[in-house]
């Protein structure tokens, strides 16, 4: 079925558009295969509203006499209303939106049609490949190697074609270890600490099952990771009880007897549906302005969103502590190793590694730890907070990561090169995008769908100098130190920039931010090494002889 067949009414005149902080507008509404457009006809060149249909999470129809009202709730949390004269038109528009906003086929999605004039499709896609990462990271060369055992995605469907593993472990052992891990996600290197060479590994749970199977190769692989040092830590992102229960369904955990060098910690993290429901509850609490303070606090608590943020930061802190303070390597996994595992390992890197705090470094981190590592974006981000559809595999793990990064930024406002704006942009793009970066669930799927050949890469486009500037933190001062966040509940806050994005509050904040920018700019101009200081020093140089002369004169 052609996309256009979903469109029964393409244009409606005399539609009224209502949205926060704008006066109501009358104009023409237009539905295309991928967009909803609105123009008030005054300015031919510009659309008053242009939203991707994929950004629409839910719509509600209401009939008022002969006309109808459609409330559109977007995945970026914007809510707007359209009053459409004519019941039939209203229903047609609504059904088109419903059909076109929930396309299943990847190649029908907008990134495959997005062709801006300033971008070309030729050239490499993405910022860096695993091979490039390996080449650039000299500290890996000695003990680690690139393995292409997964080049045809046969060993692990969700892993990229190349992974970094201990040098002394050969590909056969990897294949055997993969058979012993859920989804074939055998332990691979995620990060090597620049100070002490200790590493963060990640994997999925071992398939020990009820009768406590073991796998020699998996054990050897992990032994090779710590290479002679007597100790490593396994951070299991489930409670001990959950890990025990997982054995009943074929999963399990690394037992002390088989992995004697490894010490295991359990940290309970909610996953999947529970986290998705948290998001739904939180957004619901935020969008009802009539709450009393008590009711608000109770709803905020009830959503548990901040509890998830809290536990993610705590566990990331634990990983950092193991690596940086204790000087031991860490293996992180939960069950599947595609959600919380990535959340914890990437947060730990942000805290540990100054290189991941630049714009480029952060985007590379996301590319490596989320895109290439096989976070199933398409499944997780199919719906956001407003959808009434039955939950399938939705889970806002990535949003949770962005929230945690925001919390770190709040506590270290000078340490990150990027600003909140970048996090907000990513929060939007992950749900609906012109770019192909967040399409599909794994590298293998992206390969099959031809994403790299037929779409543009978001990260590359964000790094274009004119674009990047919008996302810079004016106060950035690089530091080599580890940025330990405080994880007291009192130190964490609701991310108002995202969840209260469409309130007046955001506008005052924006003005204050601009003021900060202008102060910094003024400072750069004044204190810039090229201008004032030159002037100062030269003036000083000229002055000194005069002053000496004056001194002499006074003495005389």
């Amino acid at each position, binding site marked *: 079925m052609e996309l256009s067949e979903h469109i029964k009414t393409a244009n409606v005149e005399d539609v009224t558009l209502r949205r926060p902080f704008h006066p109501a507008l009358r104009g023409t509404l237009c539905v295309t295969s991928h967009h909803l457009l609105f123009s008030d006809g005054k300015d031919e060149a510009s659309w008053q509203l242009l939203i991707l249909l994929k950004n629409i999470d839910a719509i509600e129809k209401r009939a008022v006499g002969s006309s109808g009202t459609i409330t559109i709730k977007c995945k970026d949390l914007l809510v707007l209303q359209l009053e459409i004269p004519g019941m039939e038109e209203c229903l047609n528009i609504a059904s088109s939106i419903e059909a076109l906003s929930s396309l299943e086929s990847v190649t029908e999605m907008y990134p495959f049609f997005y062709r801006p004039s300033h971008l070309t499709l030729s050239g490499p896609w993405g910022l860096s490949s695993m091979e490039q990462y390996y080449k650039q990271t000299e500290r890996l060369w000695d003990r680690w190697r690139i393995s292409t055992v997964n080049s045809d995605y046969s060993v692990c469907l969700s892993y990229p074609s190349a992974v970094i593993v201990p040098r002394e472990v050969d590909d056969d052992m990897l294949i055997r270890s993969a058979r012993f891990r859920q989804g074939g996600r055998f332990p691979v290197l995620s990060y090597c600490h620049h100070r002490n060479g200790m590493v963060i590994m990640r994997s999925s749970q071992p398939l020990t099952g009820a009768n406590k199977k073991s796998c020699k190769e998996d054990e050897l692989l992990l032994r090779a990771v710590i290479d002679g040092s007597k100790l490593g830590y396994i951070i299991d992102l489930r409670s001990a009880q959950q890990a025990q229960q997982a054995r009943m369904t074929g999963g399990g955990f690394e037992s002390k007897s088989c992995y004697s060098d490894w010490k295991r910690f359990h940290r309970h993290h909610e996953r999947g549906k529970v986290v998705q429901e948290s998001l739904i509850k939180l957004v619901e609490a935020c969008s009802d302005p009539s709450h009393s303070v008590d009711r608000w606090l109770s709803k905020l608590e009830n959503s548990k969103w*901040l509890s998830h943020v809290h536990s993610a930061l705590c566990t990331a802190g634990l990983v950092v502590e193991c690596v940086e303070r204790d000087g031991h390597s860490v293996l992180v996994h939960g069950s599947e190793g595609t959600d919380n595992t990535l959340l914890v390992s990437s947060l730990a890197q942000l805290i540990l590694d100054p290189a991941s705090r630049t714009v480029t470094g952060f985007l590379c981190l996301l590319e490596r730890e989320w895109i290439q590592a096989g976070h199933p974006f398409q499944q997780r981000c199919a719906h956001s907070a407003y959808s009434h559809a039955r939950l399938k595999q939705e889970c806002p793990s990535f949003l949770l990561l962005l929230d945690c990064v925001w919390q770190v930024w709040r506590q270290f406002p000078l340490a990150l090169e990027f600003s909140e704006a970048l996090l907000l942009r990513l929060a939007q793009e992950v749900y609906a995008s012109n770019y192909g970066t967040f399409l599909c669930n794994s590298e293998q799927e992206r390969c099959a769908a031809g994403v790299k050949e037929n779409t543009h890469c978001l990260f590359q486009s964000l790094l274009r100098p004119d674009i990047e500037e919008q996302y810079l933190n004016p106060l950035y001062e690089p530091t080599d130190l580890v940025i330990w966040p405080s994880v007291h509940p009192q130190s964490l806050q609701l991310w108002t920039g995202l969840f209260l994005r469409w*309130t007046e509050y955001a506008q005052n904040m924006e003005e204050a931010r601009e003021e*900060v920018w202008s102060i910094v700019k003024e400072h750069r101009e004044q204190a810039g090494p090229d201008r004032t200081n030159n002037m100062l020093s030269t003036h000083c140089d000229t*002055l000194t002889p005069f002053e000496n002369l004056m001194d002499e004169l006074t003495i005389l």
Partner: protein
Amino acid sequence: MEHIRTPKVEQVKLLDRFSNKSVTGTLHLTATHLIFVESNSTSAQEIWILHHHIASVEKLSLTTSGCPLLIQCRNFRLVHFVIPRERDCHDIYSSLLRLLRPVSYDELYAFSYNPKQNDQQREEGWQLIDLAAEFERMGVPCDQWQLTDVNREYKVCETYPRDLYVPITASKPIIVGSSKFRSKGRFPVLTYFYQEKKAAVCRCSQPLSGFSARCLEDEHMLQAISKANHNSRCIYVMDTRPKLNALANRAAGKGYENEDNYPNIRFQFVGIENIHVMRGSLQKLLEVMGTRSLSMTDYLVGLENSGWLRHIKAIMDAAIFLAKAVTVEGASVLVHCSDGWDRTAQVCALGSLLMDPYYRTIKGFMVLIEKDWISFGHKFADRCDQLDPDPKEVSPIFTQFLECVWQLTEQFPQAFEFSEWFLIQIHEHVHSCQFGNFLGNSQRQREDLQLKERTYSLWAHLLSEKQNYLNPVYSLSFAESHPVLEPSTQAYHFKFWRNMYHQYDRSMHPRQSILKHVLTLKESNRELEGTVQALKTKLQAFGVSTSPLKPQTPPRERSLPSRPQSLILGAPLLSRKEVQQEEDEEVLGEEAREDAPASTDGERTVEGSSATENGYGELTGSFGSKNEPAVVTLEFGVARMTC
């Protein structure tokens, strides 16, 4: 001095509130301070605690390592010492008990504090705030409002100031009659005049109406206020109490205005709870926040159950109602509660702050406090427990006002000339009894104490370190475009004020401060500009052209702006020791340095002033709590951030 039994105890342990860490040092007891000096020579931290700041001392049961002493301060600091010998602990304990309960005003720190100023400077300090000038700024006296001398001798109302402003048509008999019909004689007087609409904000105490009593003079008084406003004959009477409380008061011969007896009034209850509820609420809040390894759920539930933010919102709602009535409708408003010195002060002051950008400047805020709180007789001595404590009279009324202002600064980052550290510093000194401003319960009492001759003014002190309290993004144009603030009262705007209630729990603060950083940039901008100007003038004096010179040599050094030395404004400027320490930190992880010592003359600056934020105890708390076999030294260490 005779109360000090043991001036010095060595080998005292100071336990961290939220982790298992501790440091060892020496405890000194002086006439004014309790001082802890860490023995570690490289990072000797000092903690100075003013006796007046101590709310309670508790001796806990003996442990193997010694005798624990728990000290809770009014500025929300909590210290936990362990003293090796029980005898010493007892001596300190009993000395403190005596020292923190001064029996007469003369024992308060303000009377011995000497900031090395001469009499003239002291006098100038006291003259900084001039309320007559403030009323003049508002446009009073004018054709409708006059200054009355009826209270010159404090004969009509003991707790009011001498100078009071009343409607021109309110004659002396009316005033006196009205005052007899009002609790504590606090008759309706002007506190703020909104010139643009000639609308007045007046304040008083509750009428002694009981179930049916009337007072013609009082009715005339309100009539006079109504007549003084040509814009709107109708005046709002805001009873800031919950209706139930007001009803209960009727049985005691007090109560509220009967709309039938007063023409042209619109009566309104606002529902701010009384001092006892507020005291209990804060106590609950502090209990929750003091819990070790607090979970997110317990934190939010505790915050809700304390009701604290609900009370803050109630005050804010009332102030917004007041500001709207005055600025939008142009109506005059009369505000009262029971005695008219707690809730009334909160609402009038906050309302004026919303209406008048002047009160959002540093000087203006001082004037506002001086007017609505100090001169109109908020009972600072009782509420802040300065002397002869009656626990039932203590209540965080003024703290709530400061918090409301903070909530506003969060909503309007560009509207205030000052930052939160200014508010925190004022809070510190309301309890410190170091300056004369907040001593006593009323103007009259302050005059009897001759405070202006015998003590110093806080305002002069704060103005002298004004640069520490500036808000770098304060914008005059914002004030012009938003003369009246219209805050949102949606629940999610009310946040927990961590920097106030956890002021001394350094591990909770952000590790780097935008505020401080931007302020430093701004300061350095100004300095650079100044230097360039100065050099130019100098050069001109020598007859050298100031046209751009060709740089002869590259600049000597990289010209980084001086880093903010402390996250917390109001911190003492960087001392050489700190510079040294900061350099050390670059090399090796530096151990916990808590407070920078306050200078020896006891001049207290905002504590929490070290350049490093550290003591990552919080993570210890959260990890250590899980009963994990302690294979890892589960303790976060050192902050190696210099900020």
